[in-house]
Every structure is written in C-alpha cells, then in structure tokens.
C-alpha cells in the first residue's frame, strides 16, 4: 500500500476475516454478551483499569482487524463489518458519488472503496444484513478515542442531538 493516509492501512489476515463477516457477526454477539456482564464487575473493582483495558484491547484488536479509528460509537455490524471511519470523507450512510469505475476510492486510488466492500460483505451476512439501510446520525466527535464497548454499555453511543429527532 503506497499512501500516506492511515485509512489505507491493511493488516495481514484481516481482509480474509472481513470477507467472511458471518464469523465476525457471531464474534460480535458473543463478545457483547461477555462484556455486558464482565465490564460492570471489572468497573466495581477498579474503574480506571477497567476502562484502560477496554480502550487498549479495542485499539489493538479492532485496530488489527478493522483498522479502527476509535470513533467511540461502533456501527460495524450495520456496515458490513467494514469500518466507515476508514472512508476518507468519514461517510456513515453510504458511498459518495466519486467511486471510481474499478470500485476504488476517489481520494486514495489504490484503496478499494470502503462502501463498495461494505455493501458486498453485508450481502453475505446473516443477522445484520439489512442494518446497512438504517440512517446513521451525525458522529459525536466527543467520543473520539473512547472505548465503543464502554459507550455502548453506558448508552452514550446512541444518544443523538435533540434536534436530530428521527421521524418524531
């Protein structure tokens, strides 16, 4: 990969995993169940260590598989297990109009478009295939560098601005 942009970074083995998102779907549901139970306990024992552990493990694990940008509000399961923050335009709702005829990114010509991959991968998913059609709210930039697991447990990742009011 010849580019200066961190979005184009790809780790060995990660592409294979993402191209078989059914495994990742199951892993997501499994780890969700464990973390939902384990994190409150860990937090009671040592809150700062618990949080540090979550952030570090997310940085390392999701960083390796998804090139995670630590936006702190993970929607991977509704974007075909492809991180939308890897899109240089940070699009959360689908591809821009600049996708090249070969399916590559407008900004980084040697990188396949995040959303072309997201669409193809979501088609092979079993549980969350249609979540890609959901409209995603604006990114909460104050959650940057926090653990998405922690914000999910605390419910902060789905809090939208008051004026967003989806179909209210």
């Amino acid at each position, binding site marked *: 990969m010849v580019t200066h942009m961190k979005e184009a970074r790809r780790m060995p083995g990660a592409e294979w995993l993402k191209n078989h998102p059914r495994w990742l779907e199951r892993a997501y549901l499994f780890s969700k169940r464990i973390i939902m139970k384990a994190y409150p306990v860990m937090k009671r024992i040592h809150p700062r260590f618990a949080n540090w552990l979550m952030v570090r493990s997310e940085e390392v694990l999701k960083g390796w598989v998804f090139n995670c940008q630590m936006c702190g509000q993970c929607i991977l399961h509704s974007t075909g297990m492809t991180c939308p923050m890897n899109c240089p335009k940070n699009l959360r*709702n*689908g591809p*821009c*109009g*600049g996708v090249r005829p070969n*399916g590559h990114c407008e900004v980084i010509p040697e990188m396949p478009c995040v959303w072309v991959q997201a669409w193809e991968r979501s088609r092979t998913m079993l549980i969350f295939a249609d979540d890609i*059609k959901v409209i995603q709210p604006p990114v909460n930039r104050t959650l940057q560098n926090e653990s998405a697991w922690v914000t999910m447990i605390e419910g902060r990742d789905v809090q939208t601005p*008051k*004026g967003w009011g989806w179909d209210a």
Partner: protein
Amino acid sequence: MRDLTTPPRSRLERVLRSGRFAVTAELDAPDSADPNDVYQNALVLAEVCDAINATDGAGANCHMSSMGCCALLTRAGYEAVLQMGCRDRNRIAIQGDLLGAAAMGVRNVLCLTGDDVSAGDQPEAKRVFDLDSIQLLQVARMMRDRGVLLSGRKLRTPPQFFLGAVENPFAPPFDWRPLRLEKKVKAGAEFIQTQYCFDVPRLQQFMRRVRDLGLHERVYILVGVGPIRSYKAAEFMRDRVPGVWIPDAVMQRMAKTPKLQQAEEGKRICIEIIQQVREIEGVAGIHVMAYRQEEAVAEVIQRAGLLPRRPRSHGDRINQVIQTTRTDSVRCVLSS
C-alpha cells in the same frame, strides 16, 4: 407519496409539480469579486432554465462561494439553487449558512457531500466532512419542519426549503445506488440532480430499480447532462473529475470527429442524450452542467426543444440591478 396539500415552497417546486419537464442549469462561480461576472453568466442561463444552481467550490476548486452567488441571484429575482457541501464546513457553519440563505430568499437547497480536497487546486487543505449528505438533509429538514437547530434550540422563523440531493447512478456499487436514493428520500430529499449522464442504458437500469421501489413518485429526478467541448475535455473529465463516467462509445465518437467540429459533436451527443432521457418514465427534468460554456448550454436546451422557460418573477428587474451594482449594489437594491 408526495404531499401535494402544502403550497409549493419554491418556483422550481411549482414547475416540477405542474408536470412540466424541468430544466436547471449550473452557474460557474467566477474567480472575481465583481457581481457583474455572476450576472453575465446568469443572464444567458436565465432565459433557458427554471432554476440556476450556484456551485459550492466545484471540484474542490476555490471560486466565489455558493452563498455569495445565491445572494446576488435572489437579489435580481432569479430562482437559485444553493449547493451546500460538507467538505468545507462543520455542522455549526452549515446550519448558520442555511439560515442566512433562507433569509436572502433562497428556497432551493441541494445537499451534497462534495468532492474531496485532493481533487482541487488546494489539496493541502484540511477536509472537514463533519456531516455527510444524508445527515445534512435530515438536519435541514428538521430545521424546516420542526423549527429547531440540531442542538434542539428553537428557531423563531424556520427556513422554507425545497430540499434536494444528488445521486450518481454511474458509480459502483450499482445495485446499492437505488437503495441509497431511498435513504436520501427518507432523510428529506424532494428532488434529485444526478451526475453527468453519458451512459443511457445504465441510467435506464437504475431508473427501473427506482420505479420498482416506487421512488419516482416520491422524488423528482433531474438527470445531469452537458455538452463536451472537445476530445481532450472528455478525457480530462473521465480521468480527473471524480464520479464522471464516459463510456468508450462516446469517447470514440469524439475521437473520430475532426478537431474543429468536436464542440458541435459534443452538443449533438448531449441533445441525443436529453431526448433519450425524456423518454424514461420517472425522469422529471434535466440538469445541464458545462464548465465555462453558458452559450453552449443555452444552445443545447434550445435545440432540444425545451424552450420557452420563465425563471424570473419580475421582468426587467435584473437589468436594473445589473446597472445599479456598478455603483452601489446594496443601497440601490434596498431602495428599489
């Protein structure tokens, strides 16, 4: 289904509701601080279209802002479409600009993501992309329908917008594009202007899917067209302008034509495409784009048999404004 019980919010909406085949055209924002540069371009376009789009840093190149152009256009009584991109502004600036535009009399807003900075003349700039186009649509719709800012703060007078979005049926992933259009309609899009169409079969395929989803009854679709000036210009557009797809058949047709007749051939291709596009069910109009060739745009629309048009409400006001802007634009217009 469209809500036709409310009065139309703009003249463009009225034209579209009437079922007439609509024509919009793109104004090239000048690299100039002179209002007459805007008016000169607008004069040519105004005779041949229903609304004039003011581009927002087209191709990430710096020109006069869309806000500036729209202020001048609405002041002269033209029907303007404000293009609002997400590349250069965060959500605070976007909402502020929307209010400012509404106050100046802009009724049509086209919400788009925008070309990346790397495509333009200042690639070292910081890209913003705080919202994406669908979130922008939703924010604008909530400002209009619920009268609130994104923060939830109330607006004393909400803006009245006819909201538009863009779509590119000619870029992958092709089978997702119609579904993404549906997302945009859900977020609030009432009209759509597409990227340049040089590949009618692909558009037909896209429109078939759009009709299956019933979207052509919920949103007015204006197909983007434009005359190519020369083979070199076509090559440039294909290779350097993001999202433009020109099939080989069109490229060969341009290449075979002698250099001096290429501009004419480009217009002929454009007219043919307009005529084919008109036949497609669900297409409500065309959006003509041509960089720095206003005369060609006018000629194409005229030869395609789409005249006459009435883009202005008050007859000679424009000439009066053009004369007065030479001396003191703001004072004269306010007093007139």
